[in-house]
């Protein structure tokens, strides 16, 4: 058996087909979900992909967070449904308060697209089981509003609870506090990160690395073994 993983398309979503491809490459079955539809089609996990949903108007992720599909995603994520938010998806997750903190514009004020070095800090989440804690990986990063911020209390708490999942290494591309690239919720089923693992699943494409594939194999194994 395999797992069915939903990929939500909001108006302005860009990396939905890429996320579906990554799910397929990992051996799971991608299921397209539509922002106006509350029905999650009984998927086993959900990816909120990258892009500029609603043009990033108002604030990145601020409008999508109120879409019908998110009502169900929020409800089920609280009940344990694995959810991965990539880039714009991460922004939606913070706007939806499934993850703490917020995203501001990059400190250098430019869009940035680069092959980013990361350290895996937590290999225990639903989406990172196939990594080793401390492993260094390269995942492409591309964003305009990628500067993760939260108050000191929240940052201390995230670190104390091991909820910082990825940190930028060698170069902080957007001014994120404490070099945070990705975080998880208390239960470890919801993960959000700015870099794009779905762009690093095939050796020929993009940066030519496959360091992003374990995201999708991790969740598949977890679901199939559950």
């Amino acid at each position, binding site marked *: 058996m395999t797992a069915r993983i939903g990929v939500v398309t909001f*108006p*302005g979503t*860009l*990396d939905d*087909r*890429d996320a579906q*491809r*990554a799910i397929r490459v990992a051996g799971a079955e991608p299921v397209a979900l539509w922002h106006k539809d509350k029905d999650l089609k009984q998927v086993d996990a959900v990816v909120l992909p*990258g*892009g*500029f949903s*609603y*043009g*990033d*108007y108002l604030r990145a992720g601020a409008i999508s967070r109120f879409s019908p599909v998110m009502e169900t995603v929020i409800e089920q994520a609280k009940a344990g449904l694995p959810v991965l938010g990539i880039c714009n998806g991460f922004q939606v997750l913070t706007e939806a308060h499934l993850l703490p903190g917020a995203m501001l514009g990059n400190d250098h004020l*430019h*869009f*940035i*697209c*680069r092959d980013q070095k990361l350290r895996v800090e937590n290999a225990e989440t639903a989406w990172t089981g196939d990594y080793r804690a401390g492993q260094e990986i390269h995942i*492409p990063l*591309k964003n*305009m509003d990628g500067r993760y911020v939260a108050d000191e209390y929240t940052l201390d708490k995230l670190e104390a609870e091991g909820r910082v999942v990825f940190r930028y290494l060698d170069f902080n591309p957007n001014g994120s506090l404490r070099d945070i690239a990705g975080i998880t919720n208390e239960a470890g089923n919801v993960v959000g990160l700015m870099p*794009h693992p*779905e*762009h690093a699943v*095939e050796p*020929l*494409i*993009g*940066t030519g690395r496959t360091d992003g594939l374990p995201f999708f194999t991790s969740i598949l194994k977890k679901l199939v073994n559950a």
Partner: protein
Amino acid sequence: MSRTPLDTVEHAAATPDVELPWAELGLKKDEYERVVEILGRRPTGAELAMYSVMWSEHCSYKSSKVHLRQFGEKAPQSDALLVGIGENAGVVDVGQGYAVTFKVESHNHPSYVEPYQGAATGVGGIVRDIIAMGARPVAVVDPLRFGAADHPDTKRVLPGVVAGIGGYGNCLGLPNIGGEVVFDACYQGNPLVNAGAIGVMRHEDIHLAKASGAGNKVILYGARTGGDGIGGASILASETFDDAKPSKRPAVQVGDPFQEKLLIECTLEAFREKLVVGIQDLGAAGLSCATSELASNGSGGMRVTLDDVPLRDSTLSPEEILMSESQERMCAVVEPDKVDRFLEICEKWDVIATVIGEVTDGDRLEIFWHGEKIVDVDPRTVAHEGPTYERPYARPDWQDALQADDAAKLPRPETGEELKDQVLKLVGSPNQASKQWITSQYDHLVQGNTVLAQPEDSGMIRVDEETGLGVAIATDGNGRYAKLDPYTGAQLALAEAYRNVAATGAKPLAVSDCLNFGSPEDPAVMWQFAEAVRGLADACQQLGTPVTGGNVSLYNQTGEVAIHPTPVVAVLGVIDDVARRTPVAFQEEGQLIYLLGDTREEFGGSAWSQVIHDHLGGLPPRVDLERERLLAEILISASRDGMIDSAHDLSDGGLVQAVVESALLGGKGARLVVPDGLDAFTFLFSESAGRAIVAVPRSEEVRFTDMCGARGLPATRIGVVDGDAVEVQGEFTLPLAELRKAHEETIPALLA
């Protein structure tokens, strides 16, 4: 508020003596008289608006089309060409049932006035051309030219243009995979912002801009129509209304990439369900262009009710609605029984769509406002039968002196130390330096099919995940070469783009061009244009790569001073399996570096002459198109059969520039030996065309050199991939770290 009577067709016929502001709208006296002759009466204000904008240089190509005909007349026989010049974009067969459409356009003037929006809407416009052919856009490229890198205004224009291209293209989800950035003082007041796009479709999905079938509905969908981008129409409007009217908005349009993204998805879904008979995007000249082109390309006429156009500003006059260049709008012709489904799809994507008219069985384009007819024209006279000019042209009197000022007489470096200094200066000069600060502001990864992107020789996109079929695109143009000799310069632009496509392993198939020149009213500029077109058409014929479409941008000058003639050429290629692509970067130590082609003492227009001596004179490198073709065949065969692991085209900056780039990208150095018969300076800096360097695994050396020998391509072993420096034996050694610093720090230091 008082209103003068509506200028209806009836009113125009009854008031033949009313003076219209045709001169303010840019029409010449004889052009206006021609309109009156065509109509048999004076035009209405709305008709005048349509004719004036459709007969403008930008829309009608009136100065250039007598020359552009050569692209058709000299077009080589090509089985690959599915749709040629004249449609929104050309379409090329790339095999396996796939077709690719691509085109390059200019958005030069708006980008100087308002860099961000000018560049952004340039991307938006070219992408809509691609969608209008029925294709899903898969990549964009941006050939750019700016004034001197250290000029204060460049720091205003360049960051705005780059942010605009990124802001729009990134938000559309289109990978930006190529292009160029060139600095030259001649572009100070006239930056060139060219934008290219590629789209992919199945053969059966090709759509054309025509309105056929009486009774079919004309649907306008996308953004509401506003007052942005209205040029001269405001003059008409201000005569129709009194002073209580709001002031006019600026003539540069404002883009909304989010709206365009919805427009892409909604259009492609309508295509998938076969709901569309004909389609046209709204770009320059807005509804005037879309309605007259759709109607004149179809079999019937068209009736449009202008009151039904959704407006952003309810005070717009009918003339303004016809001329508005509001972005993110398209016009589709749909059979009556499919209209409901079409509108449903638009609603799904939150796109406003309105039936504004229908195809009629007559041959007139009729437009109504408040129930009265304000336009009644033969659409062909608007769209296709504008004036044609045989502008006078003459070889400028300074051309001989320029060519006589030979770069060969410039002082050359004499010692290894001098060579080394000049290499560092060259690779760190703004034109030769790394453009990563710019390209990292573009998303080149989205859609997950990017095989190669800048700074590779060509951008490459996978088309089919199963078979690995891919397409490649390169754009090139060297204004310095073209200034020295426009005929040869245009051919060199084609040769370089062709070579760049082949260097990545793809077979060149077809050409699009963006011809950027000064004022056609200057005979010297017109001569440059005529020579460049003739050169490009001749070269396309010889290389077997037809021109499928493109764009002409004239009047790129400040006062009397024109830009360098700048024909930018895009070559599209196909590769059967992207797994065989060849990158620029050196891959493995120990591999042998071969120089392919002949190196002569050619420095006219070279980067060396510019960087070291600030000189432009002499003749550009010679062109040998048969050699280019042979070189391309060797590069493609070697890639397909796994004989080379990296390849890099040699162009501006010569061999040393190419070696340094391959070394820095691969993080591996090179030890070079100056071959017999060449001096170190010529070896390193000459810009002879028809050359490339390749890195050959030792196990493949015999097979590779045998192939070159058998085919008659000179292949000279010049060194080996090795170490962490670029060393030219007996001359100098430059550590990669030092080269990297020189190469990568220039642009951020100037612009960040």
